[in-house]
């Protein structure tokens, strides 16, 4: 029912899509994969009307369409669930769900109808808990994601684009999303499913289209192929060893970071120890306090209870500055909003911490060169270019370089490989290991269990902001999930 043919698009004279074609049948889930910069998102944005194509044509049910504004795409029955939530925190759930297509009676917005329909939609999504007149800012992330989905469904779409829909979701929420997808396809919707996560793709899709450098590589029937084949098509090379070897138990040094009885308005009874050379994985559902833990240690939302020691000395950082001085670094989960100043050069971003806090490396060209070398920032246009022009992977490498400049003792990684392509992902994993091997204490938060399992020397599982248990190296996903969901009904409600 959907046909995109020979779609081409250039930005600043650089062609990012070379006549890519793709089609979608009713009730089908069609996965679109590719590394960052492969052109997936651009292709989707052409379809959702966010960008206008330079060439090619789009047909829906055989009738050619042309969008130069999202409104037109919606009118034509194309809905999109964005990677970044596009919600207005100050407006109510209902107002958000119907934003841009408010139901009207006699020209006036029909608030009653809005509320009613919203309730229905949320019911469909098994999210009765959400009141239509709550301002979105008062909802948890998971619930905001749900609202985003409801928003996409509100317009009765026939083609639904899901761009990394699970990026912000925890495993069990992913499950909910999956059966939502199935129910939608039963209704005859066609779904374009963009994702990095092979498991999801193979669980859901009938076909998978692989893009590389803005070109269509291949379109495979999911049933007739396997992960390696797809990855090979994506990367153009085998990625044999996903995860570097762990540290030998003997290689671990003494405790560097310890927290005992740590707590604040989101955490309670946190007990943890990270030793030099160790990678401590932290698992948990969305809202279980994983990121809160990192932010607490980093002094962004500090502990209000308990004590924390760094290399034996007691520390209680009340803001990031103090944490950094003490030798703690946080590679945050939101690169673009929290990790980088996007209009500034790679150089300035790399030196930001050193300059701001006056610790670690001297601010200078040689330092920058060495650090970028260290994080294997490849194929950049030099240290002078603005980071916003870098690919997700390279941006993440700059963030890490920035922290290495501060010569930290403890490195906190929160979702270090989110939205990063397979190649860069491997590079980052290797880097993390090397850093640990150099004697840093590493705390690794990830909602991607394979990564967590592959990287961690121990795994601390959180639920409801408290430790739910600790697992030795190489636990199974089931073990983790069991602990993580121990308080899940409440966490789930969040």
């Amino acid at each position, binding site marked *: 029912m959907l046909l995109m043919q020979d779609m081409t698009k250039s930005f600043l004279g650089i062609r990012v899509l070379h006549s890519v074609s793709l089609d979608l049948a009713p009730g089908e889930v069609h996965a679109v994969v590719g590394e960052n910069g492969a052109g997936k998102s651009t292709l989707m944005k052409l379809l*959702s009307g*966010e960008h206008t194509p330079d060439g090619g044509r789009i047909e829906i049910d055989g009738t050619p369409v042309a969008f130069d*504004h*999202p*409104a037109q*795409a*919606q009118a034509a029955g194309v809905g*999109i669930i*964005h990677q*970044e*939530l*596009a*919600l*207005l*925190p*100050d*407006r109510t759930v209902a*107002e958000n769900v119907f*934003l*841009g*297509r*408010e139901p*009207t009676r006699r*020209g*006036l*917005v029909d*608030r009653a109808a809005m509320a009613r329909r919203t309730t229905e939609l949320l019911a469909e999504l098994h999210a*009765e*808990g*959400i*009141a239509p007149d*709550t*301002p979105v*800012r*008062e*909802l*948890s*992330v998971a619930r*905001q994601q749900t609202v985003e989905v409801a*928003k996409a469904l509100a*317009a009765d779409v026939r083609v639904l684009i899901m761009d990394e829909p699970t990026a*912000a979701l925890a495993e069990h929420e992913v499950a909910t999303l999956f059966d939502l997808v199935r129910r939608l396809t039963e209704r005859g919707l066609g779904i374009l499913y963009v994702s990095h996560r092979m498991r999801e793709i193979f669980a859901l899709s009938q076909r998978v289209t692989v893009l590389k450098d803005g070109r269509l590589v291949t379109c495979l029937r999911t049933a007739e192929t396997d992960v390696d084949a797809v990855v090979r098509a994506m990367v153009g090379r085998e990625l044999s060893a996903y995860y570097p070897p762990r540290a030998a138990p003997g290689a671990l040094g003494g405790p560097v970071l310890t927290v005992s009885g740590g707590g604040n*308005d*989101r955490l309670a009874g946190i007990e943890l120890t990270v030793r030099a050379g160790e990678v401590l994985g932290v698992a948990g559902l*969305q*809202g*279980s*306090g*994983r*990121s809160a833990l990192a*932010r607490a240690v980093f002094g962004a939302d500090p502990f209000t209870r308990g004590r924390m020691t760094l290399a034996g000395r007691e520390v209680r950082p009340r803001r990031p500055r103090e944490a950094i001085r003490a030798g703690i670094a946080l590679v945050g*989960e*939101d690169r673009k*909003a929290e990790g980088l100043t996007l209009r500034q050069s790679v150089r300035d971003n790399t030196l930001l911490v050193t300059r701001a806090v006056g610790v670690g490396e001297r601010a200078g060209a040689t330092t920058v060169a060495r650090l970028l070398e260290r994080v294997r920032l490849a194929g950049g246009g030099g240290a002078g270019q603005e980071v916003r022009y870098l690919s997700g992977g390279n941006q993440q490498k700059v963030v890490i370089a920035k922290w290495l400049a501060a010569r930290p003792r403890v490195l906190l990684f929160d979702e270090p490989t989110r939205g990063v392509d397979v190649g860069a992902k491997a590079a980052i994993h290797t880097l993390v290991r090397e850093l640990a091997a150099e004697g840093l204490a590493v705390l690794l938060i990830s909602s991607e269990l394979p990564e967590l399992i592959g990287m961690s020397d121990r795994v601390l599982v959180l639920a*409801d*902001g408290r430790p739910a248990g600790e697992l030795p190296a190489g636990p199974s996903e089931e073990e983790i999930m069991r602990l993580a969901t121990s308080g899940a009904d*409440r*966490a789930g*409600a*969040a």
Partner: protein
Amino acid sequence: MTAASPSPALPAAAAPAAARWRRGLSDPAVGIWLAALGVTLLGWAVVAVRGGEFLTQPNITGILQNCVALGLIALGQTMVILTGSLDLSVAYLASLGTLVAAETMAGSDGNMVTAVVAVLALCAGVGLANGLIVTRLKVNAFIATLGVALILRGWIEDNYTGPAGDVSRSFQRLGYDRIGPVPVSVFLLVGVALALWFVLRRTRLGHHMYATGGDEHAARLSGVRTERTVVIAHVLCALCVGIAALFLAARFGAGSPWAGTEARYDLESIAAVVLGGTLLAGGRGGVVGTLGGVTVLAVLDSVFNQLAVDPFFKNVLRGVVIIAAVAVYARGRRSAGRNR
């Protein structure tokens, strides 16, 4: 994602009343009206102590009367600010409006309608220009409207040398009639306020204005025609200025080239809007707050008059009041948005 920073479980189903209550308290529109009431009582007390009487008919009339012009313009300003824009051209536009009105009327009631239409048309035009410069030429609203202000200024100074035109007698009644202690022009103000309040609450345009002001990118992705919304907001604003100009003309009986600028309507209107609790960034606030802000300023002014406060010192006090008020809102918002 900003939203991705984990937030505590807060099932909206549980204790929504509490949530609403908290929201209620953190809403400036309520606060500013309480403030207005407070200032009035204070003024009444202070003046009473000094053996005067504050709430006399002349005073009340005066206060209400002083609300109208600034009120109308501030209402317009509210529209653009909510949408995330800004209009610095209102002062000169008001001046030009009075001149056009007075000259078109030329003293005869016959031309009244023509004049009204002319003024509103002119303003709509200027508003449209503002909107298009901001959206199409992508000039920052601050600079865009500042530039338009300069253009208008040049036009006025080049074509007018002092008061001009003659407003017909029956039209002047708009500026002078009153029902009991309430000037009719106040009903005009309230009328416009109701209309705009209705637009914001009950029309798609209104919803889209809040959305555009709140997060233009998100709004656009949701299919809102953000640029169109901004343009319309500017036109609405300019129309309000037009109405204000008509009122001023009625009051002056003639057009005055410095009607808008001497009163510093550009900055004062913005101050009033923000005093009314509308977020300067857009996306939050509304006409109710703005009216409150205007009222507070008018009452304060009347109190200062009663106490014969040195006009220079008045400015100092005004400055302090505005900063203080906004500081309070900022505080409220922070504590309200703690769990973000």
